[in-house]
């Protein structure tokens, strides 16, 4: 085992840290899930992109720095340690981009990726529908072939679309084979949210932010991709027609695995929790609370080490596969626990609408999104432990 960073990795850390400390806005921006906050977060995205910090692990040609997975982890650590703002581009960068890299044509990569990394296009994930949450294969939105016009007509509805009200593009599954059922016969579409045929309605989240949206498609026309910007600006398809499920599953394990929640985020939260506890030592912090703080902090460290082990595997060519479900269960429940302990420490002040209470409410969504933890537990049981499906 070698738990040290190389000289060049330390140099990368120093460079990232120095840039972040000079550029991260203080005080913290209002939530990116509000209209005003979103605009401010967009400014931050432009600043990141201008100095090639928006997508460090991407190739330089697309706005990145060709950073290794290790360097990406280091960047994330520094980002959260310094208190970097929420990334309102994350759904595009962490969920859609890996799919474009894997399934996109060269023309699609050249077109969509630079626009994503410079925040010209803002993407939301249109996965869920009113009748298809955990059961993604129950998707009913459809895309009907219009051969004469040379494209597809989309209709249906997506819901619980994070930041849908503030984005200009959506990616999601639409049923292209009318005879098909379940996970067969769907296609992975990239869809513009502006123009005729699409309506976006924002609605409020538990924590008071307007981040959620319903998106209605009413005969929205997506022209066939002819490899030019003229068609691609109007949306397109990733991968093959009717093969959308496989394309989507490639995204889904990125979501649960490393890329959506790097350990730096939770280590930073754990550090803030420890700081909060230290403030209270003088007031007579109970041993029980001290131990609860320690236990949550240990878990944040454990998650970091587990990730190092995962990244070692990925770097050495071992696929993570269903083990990513372990990650998702662990970080989402860790996040809830960190915030629960903080609220316990705050006592009567816990109910105030401050960062810990807001953070707690957001943490509660963790066991729900990116595949509920109940589904994840089934996946671990069946695909990692080998228990029988039925």
């Amino acid at each position, binding site marked *: *085992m*070698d*738990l*040290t*960073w*190389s000289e060049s*990795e330390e140099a990368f850390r120093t460079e990232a840290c120095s840039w972040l400390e000079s550029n991260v806005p203080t005080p913290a921006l209002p939530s990116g899930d509000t209209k005003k906050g979103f605009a401010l977060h967009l400014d931050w995205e432009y600043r990141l992109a201008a100095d090639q910090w928006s997508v460090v692990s991407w190739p330089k040609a697309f706005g990145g720095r060709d950073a290794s997975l*290790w360097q990406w982890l*280091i960047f994330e*650590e*520094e980002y959260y*340690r310094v208190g970097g703002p929420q990334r309102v581009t994350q759904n595009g960068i962490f969920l859609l981009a890996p799919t474009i890299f894997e399934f996109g044509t060269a023309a699609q990569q050249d077109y969509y990726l630079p626009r994503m990394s410079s925040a010209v296009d803002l993407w939301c994930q249109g996965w869920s529908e009113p009748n298809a949450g955990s059961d993604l294969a129950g998707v009913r939105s459809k895309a009907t072939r219009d051969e004469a016009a040379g494209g597809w007509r989309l209709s249906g509805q997506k819901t619980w679309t994070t930041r849908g009200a503030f984005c200009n593009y959506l990616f999601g599954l639409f049923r292209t084979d009318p005879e098909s059922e379940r996970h067969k016969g769907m296609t992975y579409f990239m869809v513009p949210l502006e123009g005729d045929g699409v309506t976006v309605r924002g609605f409020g989240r538990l924590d008071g932010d307007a981040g959620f949206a319903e998106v209605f498609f009413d005969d929205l026309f997506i022209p066939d991709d002819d490899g030019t910007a003229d068609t691609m600006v109007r949306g397109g398809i990733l991968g093959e027609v009717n093969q959308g499920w496989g394309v989507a599953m490639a995204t889904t394990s990125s979501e649960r695995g490393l890329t959506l929640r790097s*350990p*730096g985020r939770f*280590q*930073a939260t*754990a*550090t803030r929790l*420890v*700081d909060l*506890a*230290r403030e209270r*030592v003088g007031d007579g*912090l109970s*041993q029980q609370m*001290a*131990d609860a*703080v*320690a*236990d949550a*902090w*240990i*878990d944040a*460290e*454990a*998650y*970091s*080490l*587990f990730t*190092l*082990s995962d*990244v*070692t*595997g990925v770097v*050495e060519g071992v696929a993570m596969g269903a083990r990513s479900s*372990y990650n998702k*269960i*662990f970080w989402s429940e860790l996040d809830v626990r960190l915030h629960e302990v903080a609220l316990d420490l705050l006592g009567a002040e816990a109910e105030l609408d401050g960062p810990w209470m807001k953070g707690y409410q957001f943490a509660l969504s963790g066991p729900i999104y990116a595949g509920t933890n*109940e589904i994840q*537990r*089934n996946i*671990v*049981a*069946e695909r990692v*432990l*080998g*228990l*029988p*499906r*039925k």
Partner: protein
Amino acid sequence: MRFALTEDQVEFRAVVRGLLADTCSPDELRAAWPDAETAGGGPGGGNGRVPGAWSALAEMGVLGIMVPEAQGGLAMTEEDLVPLLLEAGWAGLPDPLAATAGVAVTLLRHASSSEPRAQELLAQIAAGEISLGCVFANSSQSGSTQSNPAQSESMGPASVVAVSNFVPAATSLDQILLCLDDSVHLVDPASLQLTPVQSVDGARNLFHFVVPAELGESTALLTGAAAQAATLAAFDFAALGAAAELIGLSRRMLEMTILYATERKQFGVQIGSFQAVKHHLTNASLAVEFAEPLVLRAANSLALGNPQASLHVSMAKAKASAAAKGAAAASLQVHGAIGYTVEYDLHLYMKRSWALAGEFGDVEFHRRRVSAELLATQTIQIGHLAESTI
């Protein structure tokens, strides 16, 4: 950065697994129990040892894995021994592998520059000729349950040692190393007024001992600050060794249970297909998977003399103890009534888990070592594994 065992470590571990599979089966474990009835079979009359396994390990040179070359050892480190203790745990081996190859060797290495007896013992360990026990106790006058090797500047809040008056398989040991507040003694087991006591785990063949009122220079291997440093290092290894065994035990219990749940049918289906069963086992497995990286990292910290090693060990033992108790509970519950018999093998591993969970500091003791460090002084820097500001 590479958080994984080396190829050699993986191979050594696999060889030891094979060796123990051949020499330490459930039948051989039962033979280590003094009482056949409580063991659920076997010949009875055991003394807490599995001689076939011990001599095979001795022959392979495993006992001398951390002994310097000068004394005929393999001159390897904690990083190499800890994975083998994962396997010892998996097999439920009751013999003093951690005590002899890890704890005693650590103490003796501290003493060897000034003590010819220490060098001789190291050579005997490497040659596979002796078994040693190591205990951490207060001198006969003190009544407290923990010992503070004097809080010198170099020792932070985590330098507390848990004491007890129990030693497993005492009558089978050649010597016992007795670590008190400020001295380390080499004593003959017979000088300790041994009284057999009933551990829930009969294979431990546990004894109560009394610290002799008079321990003089003739038995002292180390005194003063040198003794305190050695005691802390030895205790850290003892706790970590137990943590490693607990991970192995957890995996063994869960493997047995998954197999059982796959074979056992009720209501016409395999019981492993029920979601409740899946979730019990996934939860238990999750805790084990996230405890193991803490164990391996602590081994690295001890090997490198990381100043935060005690903190890292406590993180590992706290989580490994909790994970093992959870794995035992889930395993028993999924097995149902058959798991509740001594004829079935599960009890052998559950009972060892319960014993080791409390040995060398239980969950609470170790969490407290962590909370004491966290809430003491300066900010801990996140993400820098090789160094800290503490």
